[in-house]
């Protein structure tokens, strides 16, 4: 890899009390990657995301963003949550301007108007097709519009990595698909690096240029470890390219086969792959040393 990786985790371990959640996570995300992370519920997806976000810290191992060790949340990563991403007391435009204000103005003074920042925010709103809702409050918007505004709000800050925590999880299927296309377009236009967590396998396959499967269903050579004391690992790492961003790829044979195999790899408690059999096909994938 020629560039500094946007995100690098090595040997990250996390436990809550006696229960190990994540076990030796190794991950390198290159710039421009649209990385999606799926896994069965309870596998530690959210824990992993919170650690990348700086809300939690690994018990051991290291976590770097843009070559720098990760600290508490800061502008080195943007975030779009499933809910509560917009500030309810601000209009859409003020929500977008808030980042500029918070980072360029003194908080104890009234916000000053800045026409350059306003123009830029309006330009972003046009790009996310929200310019006619600029003066509305979040509660006046539909769920899909709220998420579009939240994405614009994060992107305005040009974060090195955009983290997304099931951002479309609360939307109806039509809106969801519309926003999937929307984020793919943005990803291509703006050359973003995105780390996208979802529990929806289809979504992760359709969106991702790289699919990571986090799962606790695997076996290794450790003996005397109960299933629930073994933390989740990345059990599959696929490079994905269906050659088209059209939603019609979701109906293709290839797409469905991949869904089926990922479901077996990660979601089926009866299929316990050995660590050495993991499907780590992505060029950046970490390979466990052979036993």
């Amino acid at each position, binding site marked *: 890899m020629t560039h500094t990786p946007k995100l690098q985790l090595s040997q990250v371990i996390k436990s809550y009390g006696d229960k190990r959640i994540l076990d030796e996570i190794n991950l390198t995300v290159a710039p421009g990657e649209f990385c999606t992370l799926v896994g069965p519920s309870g596998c530690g997806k959210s824990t992993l995301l919170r650690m990348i976000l700086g809300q939690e810290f690994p018990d051991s191992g290291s976590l770097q963003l843009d070559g720098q060790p990760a600290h508490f949340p800061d502008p080195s990563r943007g975030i779009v949550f499933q809910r509560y991403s917009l500030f309810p007391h601000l209009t859409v435009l003020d929500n977008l301007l808030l980042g500029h204000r*918070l980072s360029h103005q003194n908080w104890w003074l009234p916000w000053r108007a800045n026409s350059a920042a306003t123009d830029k925010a309006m330009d972003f709103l046009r790009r996310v097709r929200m310019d006619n809702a600029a003066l509305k409050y979040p509660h006046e918007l539909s769920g899909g519009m709220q998420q579009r505004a939240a994405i614009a*709000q994060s992107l305005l800050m040009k974060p090195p990595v955009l983290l997304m925590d099931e951002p479309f999880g609360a939307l109806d299927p039509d809106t969801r698909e519309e926003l999937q296309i929307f984020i793919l377009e943005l990803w291509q236009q703006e050359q973003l690096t995105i780390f996208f967590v979802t529990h929806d396998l289809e979504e992760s396959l359709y969106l991702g240029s790289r699919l990571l499967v986090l799962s606790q269903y695997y076996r290794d050579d450790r003996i005397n470890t109960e299933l629930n004391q073994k933390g989740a690992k990345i059990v599959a790492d696929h490079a994905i390219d269906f050659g088209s961003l059209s939603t019609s790829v979701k109906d293709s044979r290839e797409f469905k086969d991949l869904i089926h195999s990922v479901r077996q790899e990660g979601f089926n408690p009866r299929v316990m792959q050995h660590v050495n059999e993991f499907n780590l096909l992505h060029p950046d994938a970490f390979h466990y040393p052979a036993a």
Partner: protein
Amino acid sequence: MHAPKLLGLHASPNRGLRIMLGLLPFILVIGLYLWASDLRLADNPKDKLLPSPSQMVDNIQRLATEPDKRSGKILLWSDTLASLSRIAMGAGAAAIIGILLGLNMGMFKGFSVLFSPVINFISMIPPLAILPILFISFGIGELGKVMLIFIGCCPFIIRDMYLATLAIPRQQVVKALTLGASPLAIVYRVVLPQLMPRAIDSLRLTLGAAWLFLIAAEAIASTEGLGYRIFLVRRYMDMATILPYVAWVTLLGFSIDWLLRTLRLKLYPWYQSGDH
């Protein structure tokens, strides 16, 4: 199937019925009073217990327009001004301190560890029980009364603001940090504005108690004020003054509440409390 007009789970009374039924208890109480007053006055024209409306109007007209012989002040207005300024100072200070303390306790763990136990403890002290202490330490002038209102209202507002701060989703704080906010900017520019409408509601709820403390303090040691007047004329069983004064206090409380609510709706259109 039509929805029933008044009775049952599915009732949807129309506008006319709503207004009529809303007014009904008022009309009943006033009618009952007029009837009883009439009966007693017919029996004894000098009866002071249930004065007639004309007696009350005469009385209030005198209090509201003619200067008092002794002080030269127009009593109703000077009493009102004295009481309102005490309420404003006491409840206003309670609101400002309450918002700041509750907000910082909710945002900063260290702050809440330091202040929560003592505030929970203080809020259990019956304010009237320490009224003598307040009069002794702050004097029987304005400060003592204002302090009683302040001490009576502040713990409630602190605790309400603390809970409201805790209810702000953690995601918002994280989001603001990723947008480059400093901790203080989050506290005062992201969280505080969201607390303001709730603070107004909190103040509205606590104003009832503020009036209670005001009247109590004025009854005990004062030279003017609505509570002072009510307790002063009690000596002469002057119901023709007491009743209009009570009605006036009630009207003032009602108007302030309405004013605060209107202010909240105007200033914070994004706030949804379910109270419209």
